[in-house]
Each structure stands twice: as C-alpha cells, then as structure tokens.
C-alpha cells in the first residue's frame, strides 16, 4: 500500500513544476533541529501545499536526506541533488544524515498521506486513507479532511473519509457533531477507534450522558467486530503451531510409529535439514544472488536427500543391529544425537546461523484491522498438508508402502513371501529421516537454526505420535493440530510458561486413561 503511494508521489514530484518551490530555509527547518520546530516547519510547508514537499518527505522517510552546513541534499542511487532546487549537486565530505525519531516519522507519514487525499487517482486516495487511519490525527488536520470529504466522489472512499473525520469530530465542542460522530464510529473496524472511544469514555473525556450512551454503543459494536478478529487469530495461530508439530512428528510417525524404532536422533535429523537449508542459502547467495528468493525451493529436495542419507547410514550402521531391543535403541540413538550435534558444532560453530526468509515469505496479508496472517505461517500450513498428503499416498497406495506395512505388521510372513525386509527397513527409515529434513526446512523459516534445534522439538514430536496412537497417521494429524490449538488457547489465557505445563499435564492424564493414544490400533497386529 505504502509502495503504490510512494510511486505515485514520486511521479507527482517529477511532473509538478517548481511553481511554488520549497525554499532552502524551509527544507533545512524540516530536516534539522528540535523536533517541535521541525514539526511546525513541516506543517507550515504542508499547509502551503508545496509541490516539491512530497518527494522531500519521502526522501526523509527513506533516510536519503543529508545535511552539510545549511544545505540540504537528497541522495538517491549515489547521486546527490539539492533538496530545495532539485538541481544536481556534489555532496560535501562532511555531510551528515538527517535523522528522524518515531514521532517525526509518524508525522512525516501522516503528512505524506494527507497530501495525497486530493490526488486524482482513486487508488492513491484509497492508500492514503488507509495510511491515515493508522495514525492518530489531530485538530489541525480537520480542514484538510473536510476538503477531501467534500471533493470525494467514490462512495466507498467517502464513507471511509467520513468515519475518519468522525474520529476528530468526536471531541468537537458541538454536541450534535459529537453525537453524529459517535454513531458513525460504531461502524468502524479499526482497533485504533476502539482505543479512541475508550479514551473518550474515560474520566477526562465525554461528560454529556446522551453522547456517552452513544459512545458506549459504538464501542460495544467495534469491540464485537474486533472480537472476531481475535477469535480467528487464536484459531489461526493454533493451526499454525499444529502444522509445525505435525511436520516435526510426521517423520517420527514413520520411524517410530510404523517401524517401532525409538529414534532419539529424530530432532537432529531435522537440524540437519535446517543446516542444509542454510548451506543452500549460502550457495545461492554467492552463485545466483538474483535468484536468492528461490533458494528455499532448492533447499527442499536437498534437505530431504541429505537427511535421508544420514538416516540410511544410521539404519545400516547402528539401528539394524538393535531391532526389537527398544532400550538399546533408545540409548544408541541418543548417543548418535549427541555425536551429530557435536559434528555440526565442529563444522558450523556453536552459534546459531542466520537463515534469511526469502522476500515472498516476509510480511503478511491483512485480513482484518487486527488480524494479519504472516506469509511464512500460511506457507508452512500448506506445506505440512502437502507433506502429509504425500506420506499418506506413499504408505497407502504404492507398492513400497504396501511392503512397509507388510514388514512392520508381520516381518517373518513378509520375508516368506519374498520381500527383502532389510532393504524395506532401510528405505522406510531413510524416508522418515528425509521427512524430518523437510520439517527442518520449515523450522528454519520461523525459528533459530543452531546445533540444539532438535532438542527443542524431540519431546513435542514424541508427544504427538504417542498421543495420536502409535502407528496411526490420522492420529498424528489429529494430535498435532489438536495440541497446537489447545496450546494456543491456554497460552491466551495463562501465558506461555503455564500453557506448556498445562498441556503436558493434560497429556499425562490422557495417556493414563488411554495408554494406546487417540486412535488405538486394533486387530492382530496390535499384539505383535
């Protein structure tokens, strides 16, 4: 939104002539000095509707303004121009950055937007209204809003402007205006409006009883609308956490759930996936910096293969000698997890490594004024479902899946009918390890990548698999998403620390009542 605004402004700045040029004195007053004086200078320049002002304000916001003595320069793409005249200039050595603090920055943004309210382009006006709605307006901006309201032709924009005007009129001295404004504000979806209404209802605010009642009503209406955003946010964050849990548990659902290997090194297989992502990112950064945003796509198969390879080596080297001896497997794989951690520490160092989100995974989509769904979370939910679908298809529909099920249900019978059980074991284990690697790619996008990344998730992944019922893919899905939503519900009420404890307690109680999990395996194979 801001971007379209900026482009439009840049265009405006270029086309507008220097009929009413910003003077050097004005530019200096806006760029340097005491904050109060700078804001006063900015307001004065804005009131005279200076055509060069938008470009200058935009440069200030982008930290492109430099000051040397009394001269102010705009430096863009390494080229300096004089801020007042717009003529090319050479930047003196001693030029200093003009610095803005939050107060100035929000004021600059508001000024930029308010200058755009009268733009001929509806899209620009719409963006400007959106930008202004987020800032807190003050009395001095009322005439401008009135002007924009009178000139507005689009009904939708007119309505938004009217509501914005109401945020100012609600503290007007005219009682009827306040009353009308209160009614108007009841239709708002902005969380800032709720804050404003609350403030008006405070001790220093409204005193008239009738207006107070109208304000109360408006506040209740806005709150009710915002409550939906909050509820949806809890559901979304729950599903998001659930999808992460599902991803980290899916690999384990195969190695532990189907094959019965208590694999304590599962977390480290995820860590290897995350480090592979890091390595692929670095390769892209040095070899194809132009295609950097795509590194994550290349990281997926790479992480799967590397983790699967490590898994295959583990299975062939250690685990195959320990089938049917859960205690030894547990100890051996725990040892392996320590070895893998130390190996990573020796190669990459003990500190976390920085995995940057590609541009298209940064930011989020604004669904409601108080509900933003971040792109990385949405992508992980979709990705978890895709991996789940892939695993389910592979296990249920392919010949390899048939062998895996056959071998895990009745090893000797499968062997009798000619299945190479050793090979199936190895492939199934490395497949589970590969899925863990994919989980690692996802984790690298939301958390820290370090040697002990796996430790943070190993308990969670076992919990999900055990809770869901060992050997049941559907159980893993329900348990993963269920735990995610439950955790987020508790967290909203009791905070992150207590929520973690509460969920653990709940699982302990549940497992006491139903030792075989949500979806207990039935039939002969359950006893095997």
């Amino acid at each position, binding site marked *: 939104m801001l971007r379209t605004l900026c482009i439009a402004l840049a265009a405006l700045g270029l086309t507008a002539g220097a009929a009413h040029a910003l003077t050097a004195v004005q530019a200096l007053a806006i760029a340097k000095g005491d*904050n*109060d004086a700078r804001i006063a200078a900015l307001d004065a320049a804005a009131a005279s509707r200076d055509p060069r002002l938008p470009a200058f304000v935009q440069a200030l916001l982008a*930290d492109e303004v430099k000051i040397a003595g009394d001269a102010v320069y705009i430096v863009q793409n390494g080229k300096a121009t004089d801020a007042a005249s717009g003529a090319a200039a050479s930047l003196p050595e001693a030029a200093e950055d003009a*610095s803005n*603090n*939050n*107060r100035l*920055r*929000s004021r600059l*943004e508001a000024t930029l937007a308010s200058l755009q309210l009268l733009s001929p382009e509806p899209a620009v006006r719409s963006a400007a209204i959106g930008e202004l709605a*987020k*800032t*807190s307006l003050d009395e001095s901006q009322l005439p401008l809003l009135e002007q924009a309201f009178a000139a507005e032709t689009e009904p939708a924009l007119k309505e938004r402007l009217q509501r914005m005007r109401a945020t100012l009129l609600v503290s007007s001295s005219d009682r009827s205006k306040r009353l009308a404004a209160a009614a108007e504000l009841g239709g708002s979806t902005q*969380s*800032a409006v*709720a*804050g404003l209404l*609350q*403030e008006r209802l405070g001790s220093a605010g409204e005193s008239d009883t009738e207006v107070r009642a109208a304000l109360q009503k408006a506040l209740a209406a806005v709150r009710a609308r*915002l409550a939906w955003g*909050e509820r949806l*946010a*809890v559901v979304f*964050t729950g599903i*998001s*956490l659930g999808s*992460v849990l599902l991803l980290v548990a899916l690999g384990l659902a195969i190695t532990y759930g189907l094959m019965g290997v208590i694999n304590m090194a599962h977390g480290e297989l995820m860590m290897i996936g995350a480090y592979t992502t890091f390595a692929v990112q670095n390769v892209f950064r040095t070899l194809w910096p132009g295609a950097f945003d795509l590194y994550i796509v290349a990281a997926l198969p790479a992480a799967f293969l590397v983790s699967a390879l490590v898994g295959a080596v583990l299975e062939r080297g250690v685990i195959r000698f320990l089938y049917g001896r859960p205690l030894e497997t547990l100890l051996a794989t725990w040892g392996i997890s320590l070895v893998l951690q130390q190996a990573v*520490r020796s190669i990459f*160092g*003990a*500190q*976390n*490594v*920085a*995995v*940057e*989100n590609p541009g298209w995974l*940064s*930011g*989020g989509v*604004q669904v409601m004024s*108080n509900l*933003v769904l*971040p*792109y990385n*979370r949405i992508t992980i939910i979709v990705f978890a479902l895709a991996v789940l679908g892939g695993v389910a298809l592979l296990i249920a529909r392919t010949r390899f899946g048939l062998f895996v099920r056959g071998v895990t249900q009745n090893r000797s019978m499968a062997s009798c009918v000619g299945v190479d059980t050793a090979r199936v074991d190895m492939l199934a284990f490395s497949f589970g390890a590969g899925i863990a690697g994919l989980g690692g790619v996802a984790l690298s996008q*939301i*958390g*820290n990548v*370090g*040697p*002990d990344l796996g430790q*943070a998730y190993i308990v969670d992944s076992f919990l999900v698999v055990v809770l869901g019922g060992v050997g049941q893919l559907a159980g893993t899905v329900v348990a993963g998403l269920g735990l995610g939503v439950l955790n*987020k519900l508790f*967290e*909203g009420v009791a*905070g*992150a*620390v207590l929520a*973690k404890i509460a969920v653990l307690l709940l699982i302990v109680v549940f497992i006491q009542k139903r030792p075989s999990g949500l979806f207990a395996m039935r039939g002969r194979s359950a006893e095997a």
Partner: protein
Amino acid sequence: MKRRFVLTATCAVLAAPVLLPLPAFAADTIKVGILHSLSGTMAISETALKDMALMTIDEINKSGGVMGKQLEAVVVDPASNWPLFAEKAKQLISQDKVAVVFGCWTSVSRKSVLPVFEESNSLIFYPVQYEGEELSKNVFYTGAAPNQQAIPAVEYLMSKDGGSAKRFVLLGTDYVYPRTTNKILRAFLHSKGIGDSDILEEYTPFGHSDYQTIIGKIKKFASEGKKTAVVSTINGDSNVPFYKELGNQGLKATDVPVVAFSVGEEELRGVDTKPLVGNLAAWNYFMSIKNPANAAWIKQWSEYAKAHGIPGQKDRPLTNDPMEATYIGMHMWKQAVEKAKSTDTDKVIAAMAGQSFKAPSGFTIEMDAKNHHLHKPVFIGEIKADGQFNVVWKTPGPVKAQPWSPFIPENKGKKDEPTAVSTVAKK
C-alpha cells in the same frame, strides 16, 4: 601395611603435579578466566564477549602485560546451563588458579556463580546490564543498573518525543532479571500515576520461538486505550523469532514502539531490520556513536576479528554495549592490579575504587568509590534499516548507579556498598 604404603605413595606421586602448580609457569603469566556460554540459547550474545575479552588480553599483552607479566586466558564453555556456570567457575578458581574471571550474561548465571566467588574470595567482572538488588564484594558490575538503563528508557517513552506512552506491556523471558526489572518498572510507573490496568506483564520460557500469541495480545492491549509501548526484557536467541513475528505481523514502531534492554547490534545480526525501523534499545554504548575513541576501538576489533577469522565478525564486525563493558572492566582491572602491585583479591578491590578509563562511548568512565558499579552515560537508540542504532536521546554525562532501586520500598536504608557479611553467606 606394605600394600597400603605403596598405594598411598602412588597416589601422592600421581597427585603431586595436580596439587602443586609448577612455579616456573606461575611466575611468567597471570591467568584470566573467561566464563561465557559458547553454545546454547545465550551463545548468540555471549560468544562476542569471549572474543572481546581475548582481544583485550591480546592488546594488554602487546603493551607489556600487567606488572611485566603476560596474561593467559583460560576459556571455558558453560553452555547456557546455569548450574554448569558454578562448576566451571569452581574449576577456574581452584584448578586453573585464575587471578580474575570475566563472565556471565544472564542474571541467573551470575546468581549461580556468586556463592563460588564469595566462598573462595575471588573476583568476577560482570559486563551486562542487570536488575540490581545485589551488591557483592566479589563482583564488579560494569554493565548498567536499572537507573542507568530501564528507568531512563521508560521515561523517554513517556516523553513527547518518545510518543507519550500511557500504557505499557512488560514482556520478558521467565527468570530473575526480567521479573525483578519489571517489579521495579511497575513501581516506577505507579509513581508516575499509571495504574495496574494500564500494565500488562507477560513472560515466555528461555528459547521460546512462537510469538504469535504474544503479538496478538500486544495488539489487543494496544486497542484498549491510549498510546501503548512495549518494554522487552527478552533474552537470548528468542529475540530473533520475536522480531521476525513483529515484522511479519506489521506492527510498526510508529504504532507500538518496542524498547529492548537486551537487544543490541549483535542480536539483530540475523534479523531483517527493515520492518523494525524505529524500535528502540537503551544502552550505555552504541556502535554508531561518533567519536575518535570509538572509531579506533571499532577498527581494532575489525582487525582482530579478521586476523583471527572469527565467524560472522570477520565479514561484518559489530561492537555492542556488553563488549564495551568487558573492555572497560578488563582495563580497569589491569590498572587496579598495577596500583595494588598484586593480584590479591582484597588489594585489587581496594585499588578498583575510583579507577577511571577513557571508554569508546566517548566519556571517561569512573568506578564508584564504594558501590562496585560504573558511572555510565545512558543512550537511547532507534533501530535503523541497516541494523545499527540512531541515538535519539542521551544523558549529558555519566550517571551514578543505584544498585538498590529507590522504587522498591524494602530497599530503604540499604547501604550503597557491599556489606561485610554477604547476602548469600547469611543464607
């Protein structure tokens, strides 16, 4: 009888080299212990301190050492594991016989090693801002006390330039430093007329990585009244997911500013700072401070990092406040040892009082005559798009530390110097 003699003799022979430090080596060098986590959740912050300590030792050695003796660093890794801090401290003191230890970041690790240092009457220099409420004779606190960081930062947020915040979210990692700091801040806010309904306190475990709910709560709290600001005492690598989520959820500093006490240049290394522009940090030093002393120090660090191939730092050298505090502390210790002409703990403590050092922050920093804390200037900076800080407010000069916060009523009458019987020993 004979057998027992043989056994005893063998033991004695085996133990001799361990028990008796070889005098030839002891005469040549002075050992200095470095106790910082090089792995685990705190490694993100503490690794740079280890490297800075090594650089300072290198610098001191090149200029002739301390009393003509070279310093020898003994580096251990307590791995972000609090009980392990105590074990490693014990090892440094009784096995390696170090003269002084530089170390710890989190207050919980400092509390863990404190009994070890008090019991053996050894010295530790603690380089990080902390919550106060402690004053041990065996510790020199070269970071900020609450009145040198937290209180000025909140005062700034309440000022016109800071956005006139009226409501506060106190967000922290769940351990002693954030809990105590927030207790002090709550009392401070009460004294400024801000009630409990306008304060939201939230904690997350160490290493927490899912900040969706917290950000949601901040948004909700901000929509319920006047201008809201967040005071973050989140420590360690949790800051990366916290700031990532903050950026992704589109919560801008102009709407709800976040001021952090444990986030500096180093912690922001792996974060895309463009969406975070305007969020604040309060420290006694920023890398962006312009003065000749700072420029020279940054240059020295860059060259050291390059020469020693320190990962990350060799490509993009960064300095921060705790690194500066480590640097100041080690130089002051050197000066004190030379003044006392001994590394004996009590003599060094006596000589530390009133030591001064020209610090990279541009001020001449002085060790208080009594309370084991430095007089430090306070800076408040806003995050810029390049991950550096733009100083928007500073004190005119160094401020004296108040380890016992005046906002906590129980502190009334407590002495501003270490008491003879330590707080820990009483227990």
